[in-house]
Every structure is written in C-alpha cells, then in structure tokens.
C-alpha cells in the first residue's frame, strides 16, 4: 500500500489509470471516494450522446464495495437494509437503502447476491464501522473489497453488441441479473445494471485483469462507437433516468450537521423499497411513527438554463424546496431537475425556480415555472428488452 507516500498522491489511481489518463485529453480530473476520476475525457456532448446512441465505458473502481458473507448474511442484510433480501435470488441484484435508528437515510446502493450466502454491497459512502456494528449477533463476516475489484460500466444501446463482439454473449441476461465468463486466465462477472437508465452492463474482475479488459473491450467496440465517458456525462444520464446520488440529492445522516437536512427513505421517494412485513430492520419503528415533511420529485423547468441549486418558491413568494440536481437534457430538449420539496408541494402547482444565469459576467435572476413530472424523464424500452436489439 501507499501509506508512507500518500501525501505525494493524495488521490489514488484506479487499476485503469494508465488507460483513463491516456484518454483524458482535457486533463479533467475530480476526486471520487479518494480516487482520481475523470470528469470529461474530451467533449461532454459527445460523451453524453454516446451513452444514448452508441456505447460507453466508465471507470467504476472508486465505488465503495463491501463483501458480506456467512450463513446469516440474509438475516443480517434484512436487518441492515429496508428491502427484503430473502426475495433476492442468487445471481440477482437489487437497489436498496439503509437507515439509522431514527429512520434517516445513511446511503443507497446496489446489492449483488453472488451466492446463497455471499453478497457484494456497492455504495457511495464508506460505512465499515456501521456495517460491523450492525453485525453484532449475526454470523456474518464483512470486509471492504473496493481495492480487490476492478469494475467498468458499459452503457449504451450498442453495449450488448460490443460484449458479443468481445466474446461475451449476454443476449439472455435479464435486467438485474448477472453471469460469469472466463477471461484472460481469470473471471469476468457481468451484471445487467447501470446508472444511465439505458441498456447497459457492469463488468467486474480483478485488478490484474483491468488493463487487458479495457484493451479487449475497445478492440471489440471500435466499430460500435465505444468511447470512455467521465462523471459529467454520466451525471446528465442519471438525471434523465431520475436516479439519485447520496451526498448530492440528500445528505447522508452520519454527515448531517443540521437536523432539518435529515431525510427518510419516504421523503426521498424511496418508500416503495421498504418491506414492512419482513421483520425488524434498523429504523423501522422510527419510520412507522414518522410523518414525512419532505417529498422528492422530478421537475421540468421552463427555459434552457440549468437550474442546479435553485431555490423553489410557491407562488414566487414562499420557499418550497431546493433543486438538488439539474441539467439541460440533450435527449428531451428540456431543462430537467430533481428536487426536494416540502411535502405539501409534492404534487406541484404554482412552483417557481429562482435561477441565476451567468451572462457575460453578470448574473440575471430568472423566476422560471417549475412543473412536477413523473420520473424517470427518459426510459427507453431497450433498457429492459431481452434479448437486447442488435446493432
């Protein structure tokens, strides 16, 4: 490890770094969970366009991953998270969240059931102490495996075709399922998951096979428009898909300083995840007693100025909430946003976004109509079609 020289490289490099650095024509880097992560390789519009029209590769390595295994792993995860893990069959993946005792959101993540009693939990924040504390009384072993896994997200309408060209036939793979292939003397696990709301896969292997995997994919994808994308393009795609990011769309409970920033799953529009019948889970009693104060909604904003951070007003007068993520959607040709609103405004109506538009060094204050709409904003049928269409 790099314990003694950490100050020289305050951001770690992922196993794909030699390739991502070479491709990062704009030298545009940002920190993600302690790793250097590409924001935009070359051109944001082209990268977003590739997600919706071709295929893209995104370096997922910084995502925090925990290995959870043992004969009571299911019981443990049912107590930890709000969803019913017993319904997740081996080879399956589901999206879930977990709360503290007060029912406030700690994080969201995807849970992979690798075998009957072995799981991988992928998430945004680090939680090892919480996961270990939660393990008291359960026969389960928990360890962080972020550095033991090299992962790429392969997303876009031609992604299945790219995989086929690479020798990995995923035509039968359904959404939220995974499969395994032999690769370069090791193993490649492919799950039909992603953060774009499009057809896409996530590829999991060991760090030693990271560069061979990258090279193999790009050789296979050359004729299918494959290109690497950075976090900026992915962020636009996830907004179009209506997905939230911990720390952006809500503040995780352990980091909240201000009491009124705490949010329950219900307040973040995630109440549908909760299985009230499965038995006790951390935060259950608090959630049962809690009356939601907030709602989480998708919005379309008049005009074409990105509305990130805008304060929402009812009748242009009283504060009603805040926009947590927004972009101009190239696919929809609309200004879209995700927002926390006070619960009485969950259905919308007479809401306005106060947007500051920077025009040649001067801000223009705009009060734009903000309409509550259903999420996802963009949900092409191809994201679920099995087998996926060929290109």
């Amino acid at each position, binding site marked *: 490890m790099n314990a003694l020289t950490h100050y020289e490289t305050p951001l770690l490099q992922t196993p794909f770094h030699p390739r991502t650095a070479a491709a990062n024509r704009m030298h545009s880097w940002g920190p993600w969970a302690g790793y250097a992560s590409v924001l935009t390789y070359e051109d944001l519009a082209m990268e977003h366009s590739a997600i919706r029209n071709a295929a893209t590769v995104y370096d997922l390595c910084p995502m925090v991953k925990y290995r959870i295994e043992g004969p009571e792993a299911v*019981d443990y995860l049912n*107590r*930890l998270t709000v969803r019913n893990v017993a319904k997740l069959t081996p080879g399956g993946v589901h999206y879930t969240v977990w709360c*503290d*005792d007060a029912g406030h959101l700690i994080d969201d993540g995807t849970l992979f059931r690798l075998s009957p009693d072995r799981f991988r939990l992928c998430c945004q924040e680090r939680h090892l102490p*919480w996961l270990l*504390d*939660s393990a*008291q*009384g*359960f026969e389960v072993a928990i360890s962080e495996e972020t550095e033991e896994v090299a992962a790429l997200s392969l997303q876009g309408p031609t992604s299945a075709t790219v995989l086929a060209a690479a020798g990995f036939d995923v035509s039968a793979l359904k959404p939220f399922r995974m499969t395994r292939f032999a690769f370069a003397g090791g193993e490649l696990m492919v799950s039909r998951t992603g953060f774009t709301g499009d057809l896409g896969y996530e590829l999991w292997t060991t760090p030693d096979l990271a560069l061979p995997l990258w090279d193999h994919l790009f050789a296979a994808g050359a004729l299918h428009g494959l290109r690497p994308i950075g976090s900026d393009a992915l962020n636009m795609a996830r907004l179009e898909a209506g997905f939230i990011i911990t720390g952006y769309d809500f503040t995780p409970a352990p980091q909240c300083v201000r009491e009124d920033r705490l949010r329950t799953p219900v307040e973040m529009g995630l109440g549908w995840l909760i299985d009230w019948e499965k*038995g*006790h889970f*951390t*935060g*259950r*009693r*608090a959630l049962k007693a809690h009356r939601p104060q907030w709602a989480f909604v998708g919005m379309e904003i008049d005009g074409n100025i990105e509305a990130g951070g805008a304060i929402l007003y009812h009748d242009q007068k009283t504060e009603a909430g805040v926009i947590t993520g927004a972009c101009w959607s190239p696919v929809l040709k609309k200004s879209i946003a995700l927002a926390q609103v006070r619960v009485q405004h969950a259905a919308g109506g007479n809401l306005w976004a106060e947007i500051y538009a920077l025009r040649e060094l001067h801000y223009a204050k705009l009060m734009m109509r903000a309409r509550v709409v259903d999420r996802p904003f963009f949900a092409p049928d191809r994201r679920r079609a099995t087998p996926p269409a060929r290109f």
Partner: protein
Amino acid sequence: MPSFDTIVIGAGPNGLAAAHRLQSAGRKVLLLEAAAQAGGGAAALVPLADGFAPQPLAHLSLNLDPRVEKAMELSRHGLTWAEANLATTALSETGAHLRLDGPAAARISGPLPEADRQAWAALRARLMRFAAVLAPLRQMPPPRLAKNAGNPMMKLAMIGLKARMMGKAEFRELLRMFLTNVHDALNDELSDPLLKGALAFDATLGSWLAPRSPNSLLLWLDRLSGGTAGVQGAIGLPVGGMGALAAAMVAATEAKGITLRCNAPVARLLVEGDRAAGVVLADGEELRAPLVLSTLSPKTTLLQLVGPRHLDAGLVTRARHQKARGGVAKLHLALNGPPDFRGADLRSRLLIAPSEEHVERAFNPVKYGRTPDAPVMEVLIPSAFGPGHAPEGKHLLSAVVQFAPHAPDDPDAARAALLETCLRQLESHAPGIRDLVAAADLLMPYDIQARWGLPGGNWHAGELSVEQMLFLRPLPGLAQYAGPIAGLWMGSAGCHPGGGISGTAGWNAAEAMMRAPA
C-alpha cells in the same frame, strides 16, 4: 394454565417491588426468578461452611425505598431492624479507632482534632441538605429533555425551589460541589486521615470511581439521600440479616397472590408483530403476557432477552458500550472464634480505610486489571448481632472489599491474590484472625456477574456515574422505563435511580407502566 397480563422477569428487590405494585393495581402478575430463591442481591444464597448461614451479596440496607417498605408492609411480613442506625468504627492499626455514631457519622468519638469535628459537622450538614434536595428525583422518572415531554413540572419545580431556598450561598455551593470529586471536597475541609478514609470509602462504595475520580461526590450525595426507617443517612441491619429483608419482600408478594416461579431462567423475550408477547424460558417453555417488565440489567435485557435482531443497530451498539464495570468483591469468612479488631465494637460496621489516599491507591491497580496490595473494606460480623449466623461460639465475617478488577487476565489467580491481601489486611487490624479462619470465600466481580447476572459484577447493573444518570440511564431515549419494543418495560438497578436493596427502580417502572396508555 393460568393467564397473566404482566410477566416480571427477575425477583430481586426491583422485581418484587414492581410485581407487588402492579398486582396491587389489579394486574395479574407472574414473577420469574432464575435462582432457586427470590431476593436478588438480598437473598441469602452463598453457602460458606457447615453450620454457617448462607450469605447475601448485600449485607446492609442503605436505601430501602419508603414507598416499597410501606406498601409491601414489610414489618408485618417479618422485617425488624437489629440496628436501624448502625454505628461505624473507622479502624486504626494502633487501636486509636474513631467511632461514628448516628446517621452519616452525626457524632464522632475518638482522637479527632476539634477543628475537624467542627468542619465535619458543617460539611455533613451541607451534604445531607444537598442530598435531601436531590432525593425526590429518585422517586420519579428522570426528566426528559425533549419538547412537550410531559415532565412532572410541579415536582421538578419543587426540587428547584427547595434548592434555591437553601439561600444564595448554599445554592452556589451545591453548584460548585455537585460535580467535584470526593478527595477535593474532603481535603478542602478536613485533616484527619482516618476520618477522611472512612468518608471516602463510603462515598465511592459500589461505584467504579475512586475519591479522586471526577464527579465522585455525586455518588456520595446519592448514598446520603438514602436512609433507614425514615432517618436520612442511617444504615440498617435487619434481624437475621439482609436475607430476612428479602424474605419479607417475598412474603409480601405471596400475600398479594402473586405467582412466583423460581428456577425459571428466561432465555429470551417472545416478540410477535413487533410487540412483546411473553417470554421463553431456558427449557423452552413459553409463557405469554402482553406486558413484560424486565428487572434484569439493561445490557442483559437488550442484548440477550430481546437480541439484536429485534433492535436497531445503533441501539445495540449503545447497549454494548454502556459502561458496566464492578469494582467490589465480597468476602465471607467462617471464624472459629470472635475476632479482635483491637477492641473495636463488633456490633458496629468496621471500616478498614486508613486514609482517602489508601482508598485511591486501592483503585489504581484495578484500572489496569490487577488487584490492590492493600484493599479497603467494610467488615460486618453478623454473628455479633444475634444468633442464627454461625454455630455457638463461632463467628461469621462478611466484608465488602474495594477494589477488585472485573476482567483480569487470570480470574482465578486474581481471586487468590486478592483473598491473600484481604487476609493480610484483616490480620494487621485484627491480629490472630487468620488462625480463626475455618473457611473463606471471595466473590470477585466476575463471580458476582455469574451468580447474580450483574454485568461486570457492577452493583448498579451498569455503572452509576454522572454520564449514566437520570435521562442518560440506562441509555438516552430509554430512561422512562419503556423498552424499545412495545409491551416491554425495564426496571432494574441499571435504570434510574440505580441499585441498592431499594426496589425504587422497579417501583418507578411499575408506576410508569400504570400511567402508560393501554
């Protein structure tokens, strides 16, 4: 199979008091006890030698709750005091003992400087006044910090008013002394080592604090808020020993028609639909009731009876981290004849605590899991007060020994080492006593844990210290006696206001249960 509407787990003083209170209010109570005999820390359970009476953990009564004593009609059920105001002898190795008579050393005879005599009178009066002001807090649920929490505002206002009515100077003194330590408070006023030793010993008895530990004075005030037969600060010894007090409490519950089952250890709480539904005994038997009151320690109740699966992860962590270290060992000796503590009155409480520094030094090694070379102790010779404890001509010695490690590396070696230093310490104060010893038994904190289920062997089923008092006891959010699961209540010494053979926590819990909406 008779049906019950309330199951009380644990027939110690708290369980007995709570069961009695609930049954008196018309509930149908089943009282379950793991041991062969009810009474908890007061039950005479520890065998010593042929012809000698089994001994209880607690050998004196400090804070029997007057509500419990009255409502359970303990005197009608056999409780009489051999001494309702036990004198204390602070033993000197030279025989220059101090005799402390009256409640909380009201009168001192022996070689004491006149300045100390006067200073103690003033300090004692002040401490007793402070303790009396705070005493009503013991008999109510801890005040809550939350908004609109439904605190008993009148009672709290009365406490505040009484504190303020002591006058500006005394009120300021209360605030100054409230969180100070025993060592500093003593040395501000007194000079005589023997007197300071005796007071420092009493002040820290049963806690995991030494005289110099921050906030230790509060524990002393807590002790002084107790009393016997209506006299504040008086120490009581029942006729027949503390076992007789336990027996009176048991007789009172039986007279109430409460079903008491001994040898019935509870393995876990039965939880159905996120509500307490009864208990499962160690042998698998299921007993059902919509209300369950556990007077086992909060740690045991939460981590074992309920278990992590029915609790939030954060609460489990807090329960695990609740401090529960016991620093007291219990020594029993069977003696072939009367010991001679250089002429000290055997019908008094004999303290071996030569100075407050000795008390502190006895604690130092315990912090690191080792045993002290010169333990301090409270010695009682029950057989000197009446028959029934030892065969004719023989005597029984019961001693509370401070301090003892609760988790040493080698428990058996630590027990042997402390027994040896205890005997040496006794020999130096009662020459020849070692030759009288026919049998010896030392219960270390871990032995106390094994026998009475007190975590860490702590007298209070969870340390009593300022950070674990009032609304922080046993844990923030659980201080109102209601457990984390509907239908489950907690009323052990680990709850407010703490331990002792008082029944207070159990009584408070029973009252809270009766106030709760059905």
